């Protein structure tokens, strides 16, 4: 663009006819088309069908169906609240105000993996715990943890491939084992992670389960020193292995009912343990465990003393986005983190606009 040469300034518009005019109109059309095209391309509407957050959530809906108002994954859950008492020791590696000695309110949500809210509880189901730490001055720390020692997938693409591979075959109503076998052949890192996951027996209930951050995060302390960190919530309650399946058959909500009964008996507590990476420990690969001898910091005790149904609790309408972080904790180079944030947000937007179906764990049940 720019100003026209001066000598043309007095030319009347009508004097531009024929080829010159067509060419100039064409220039305008091309400029507009290019900008519009770039916009459409950036939005993923044209070109390759790349994996977008919307398509990821579509994948969950394809496999589990659409259950209005529920999370597309970890659909079944209960809301809890309580407080975190920081020991002050975490301040050694992070300047986040959550690690200054003191007490902070928390809300959370226990859940089971999968997108079917009315599915029966099973010992082998992935157990989730989302926690929101309410820090001073409007800051928050949100974390969504599960009971697995490592995450089975290294990248969002691998997660999505496995999600589709695990979809029930319309002919048999069950996942096609050949598809899963092919996935594991293509993703040996997932095969070893799943082997490690299967080697660990789940605990008897939510109250004695250890929850892990899985992904690594970057901690910065007040001196500007950085560390790669993972964390775990380790139950203060004594842990027992899961009972035989036959006991569990009678109650489809036995894990949640056990949690409700336990919390009504007395507050449940977990220690927040920060694990600092040693040299060579990967920060970008959640399928690989870090050696057990790494430095561990006891950052404080999480106490949960109140339980509520998703129907009445606060946590149903909270997105436990793992990248809602306080100053002093930030995302690592793990490719799962940005993808989790993006997909959770897409899921949140879909379900918040929907009519809410009642939770399988009703307010009557959590009040018992």
């Amino acid at each position, binding site marked *: 663009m720019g100003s026209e040469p001066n000598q043309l300034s007095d030319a009347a518009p009508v004097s531009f006819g024929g080829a010159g005019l067509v060419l100039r109109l064409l220039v*305008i059309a091309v400029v507009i088309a290019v900008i519009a095209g770039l916009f459409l391309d950036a939005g993923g509407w044209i070109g390759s069908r790349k994996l977008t*957050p919307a398509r990821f959530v579509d994948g969950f809906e394809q496999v589990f169906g659409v259950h209005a108002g529920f999370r597309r994954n970890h659909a079944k859950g209960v809301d809890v609240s309580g407080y975190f008492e920081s020991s002050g020791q975490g301040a050694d590696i992070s300047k986040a105000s959550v690690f200054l000695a003191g007490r902070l309110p928390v809300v959370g949500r226990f859940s089971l993996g999968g997108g079917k809210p009315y599915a029966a509880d099973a010992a082998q189901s992935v157990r989730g715990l989302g926690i929101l730490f309410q820090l001073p001055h409007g800051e928050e720390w949100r974390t969504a943890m599960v009971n697995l020692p490592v995450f089975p997938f290294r990248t*969002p693409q691998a997660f999505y491939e496995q999600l589709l591979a695990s979809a029930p075959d319309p002919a048999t109503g069950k996942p096609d084992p050949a598809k899963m076998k092919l996935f594991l052949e293509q993703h040996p890192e997932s095969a070893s992670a799943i082997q490690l996951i299967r080697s660990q027996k789940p605990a008897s209930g939510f109250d004695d389960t250890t929850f892990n951050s899985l992904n690594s995060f970057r901690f910065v302390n007040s001196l500007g020193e950085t560390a790669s960190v993972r964390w775990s919530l380790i139950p203060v309650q004594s842990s027992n292995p899961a009972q035989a399946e036959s006991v569990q058959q009678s109650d489809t909500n036995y894990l949640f009912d056990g949690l409700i009964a336990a919390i009504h008996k007395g507050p449940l507590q977990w220690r927040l343990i920060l694990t600092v990476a040693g040299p060579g420990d990967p920060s970008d690969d959640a399928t690989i465990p870090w050696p057990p001898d790494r430095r561990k910091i006891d950052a404080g005790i999480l106490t949960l003393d109140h339980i509520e149904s998703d129907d009445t609790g606060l946590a149903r309408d909270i997105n436990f986005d793992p990248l809602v972080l306080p*100053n002093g904790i930030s995302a690592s180079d793990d490719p799962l983190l940005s*993808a989790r944030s*993006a997909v959770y947000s897409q899921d949140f937007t879909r379900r918040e*606009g929907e009519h809410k179906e009642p939770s399988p764990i009703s307010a009557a049940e959590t009040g018992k």
Partner: protein
Amino acid sequence: MASNPTHFTPLSRILHWLMAAMLLAMLFIGVSMVASLGDYHRLVAIHRPLGIMILILAAIRLVNRMLTTLPPFPPTMSRRERFLASASERLLYTLMFALPLVGWGMLSAGHYPIVMFGPVHLPAILPADPTLYAILRKTHTILAYLLFLTFLAHLSAVLFHTLIKRDHLLDRMALWPVRTHGSINKN
């Protein structure tokens, strides 16, 4: 010159081009981030503070717009064109305010902390409410598409005047040096 300007004031021109770049960047960041897994977090971290900066600049720009005299429309613009130009200007100003405010309100209603940078947060401007969040989230998208279409119409009109009518309309907003000429006030 002040009473009968041929150009927009230097501040108006600086604000125009600065905000043009910011708004266009914002539209592309917005549309890219919602379609991205890997870059989502990085882009959102830019999108939020950039949106608030646009809101602040929009307020400065509105005050500036009310305090300055505009150069006249070139005689090459018909009455209908002048009406459309004024209407689209009003729409652009409305969107410059509405998009950041809806975004801020949407995060408030969605129970999100409104992170700017480091420990700096903005307060919520609306109560946490799922339905309100869902409505504002959709509104944010629709307004963004409307802004993009209005921008394309604005750009088409300027290109039409510059390349077809050659009436030096763009010179009024130029940040680059332009030689004075009489075409605007002639004809």
